[in-house]
């Protein structure tokens, strides 16, 4: 059983300590993500979603609990993890071309030049940007920039792909396209995806499961299974009664989280 678990978060707690004031952001988070799963995390704003994601990414020290990726405890950014940040404009290196951005982590991995070129071309192709390799990120639209960030992440061939509200800053149409891109890539590459969002519809549309978080200090309010067919599209899936039902349920959960409702202490 344990080798089908890609990401294991057990009793995660995070308190920001500063002189005279401690802020308890995450109290006790426990969940597991199986290999190849696509799980969304949704919660009211200020629920510590970004804190959680930065902890999982190994960018923040934990105050308690443990995170294991492929059985190994995460104490620093692990090799098998790639992150797509919300601020695409700030996470791509503006002095590198699109190719340079995708290639840089591969260079650090020690891949040979030919292998790098092949992977870069493949990744850019997969996100629909085969002709933009020589452009600089700032020459592209926001949606395209986020595609580049996704290309960089998949070229890195992570076992878990973390996405931190990646589409929060793009327009609605681009957003729909990018959501479908994530579904397509996930199915094609078999990568495990943990997708953090504040958008309830997005979480239901994308995920196989939706973890609803409480407000601060954060715990998991409910683990909602999304029993929608695997083939989803923006029109039929979003208008199906089942989608509406799950969406309503998640919506109510988030509303109750906002009111400060918390699960019974086990």
């Amino acid at each position: 059983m344990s080798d089908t678990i890609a990401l294991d978060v057990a009793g995660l707690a995070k308190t920001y300590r500063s002189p005279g004031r401690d802020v308890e952001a995450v109290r006790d988070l426990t969940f597991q993500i199986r290999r190849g799963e696509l799980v969304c995390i949704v919660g009211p704003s200020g629920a510590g979603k970004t804190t959680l994601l930065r902890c999982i990414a190994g960018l923040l020290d934990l105050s308690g609990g443990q995170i294991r990726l492929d059985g190994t405890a995460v104490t620093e950014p692990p090799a098998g993890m790639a992150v797509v940040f919300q601020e695409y404009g700030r996470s791509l290196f503006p002095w590198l071309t699109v190719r340079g951005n995708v290639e840089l982590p591969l260079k650090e991995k020690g891949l040979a030049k030919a292998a790098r070129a092949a992977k870069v071309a493949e990744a850019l192709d997969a996100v629909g940007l085969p002709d933009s390799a020589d452009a600089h990120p700032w020459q592209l639209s926001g949606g395209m920039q986020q595609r580049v960030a996704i290309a960089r992440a998949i070229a890195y061939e992570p076992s878990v792909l973390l996405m931190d509200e990646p589409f929060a800053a793009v327009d609605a149409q681009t957003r729909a396209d990018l959501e479908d891109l994530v579904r397509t890539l996930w199915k094609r590459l078999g990568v495990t995806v943990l997708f953090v969002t504040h958008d309830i519809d997005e979480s239901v549309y994308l995920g196989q499961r939706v973890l609803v978080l409480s407000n601060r200090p954060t715990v998991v309010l409910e683990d909602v299974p999304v029993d929608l067919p695997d083939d989803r599209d923006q029109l039929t899936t979003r208008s199906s009664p089942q989608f509406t039902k799950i969406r309503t349920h998640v919506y109510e959960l988030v509303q109750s989280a906002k009111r400060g409702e918390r699960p019974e202490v086990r």
Partner: protein
Amino acid sequence: MKISELPRRVLIALGLPVVLIALWWFASAGSTSFFWPPLSTIVEAFPETWTADPWLHDVLPSVARLLGGYLIALLVGVAAGTAIGRSRTLRALCEPVLEFFRAVPPPVLVPVIALFAGYTGSTSKVLTIALGCLWPILLNTVEGVRSLDEVLLDTARSYRLGRVATLWHVVLRGSSPRIAAGARQSLSIGVILMVISELFGANRGLGASIVQFQRSFAIPQMWTGIILLGLLGVVLSALFRLVENRSLAWYRGQRDAERER
């Protein structure tokens, strides 16, 4: 830049200088003042003043000292600035001292440095130039490194970029616009200090020559020296811009793109 734009740009760049030279030429044409000779006299004096020997023994050594001091300042400034910018502790430790040294005008250091490094050799002059150029580069590097985007650094960390790659591809590239701003400031300080460092006890060098012409009342020659100094400044800043245009093209492009949005 399109080819058709080139003549227009050259015209714009040269327009004001041509007008100023013309003004100087005609205003000074009939001048009988000893200290204010006609420009035509100065122009005539130029080739006979700056022959092979002064080029070799005055101008080139001066320029070499300038470049030497400037490069030392660049290396030390960027290295120390990066270290200070990256470490909060180091920054807290250094900041008051840096503020103090920045406030000391570099020319007052000339006699002090000369005391330690000697009046006549190149060492004291290179040291003076280096010390004067250091502060703008150092302080701007600190500022540039400190204001690096957190998201970029997080990205570098999450993709496990090593120390060297992070330093080279992220920290230095990211702070290069600020470093360049400091380096540009330092270049003009360097030219000033090149001259000043030769005012005390040097008998050769571009700055020393100008002073000697002045003291021996060789006024047209003195003017040619001043003009040469100005031209040197123009050439250096053009070279600087050439390097800057190449390495900071991304920065300008990004800024323009942001402005359009």
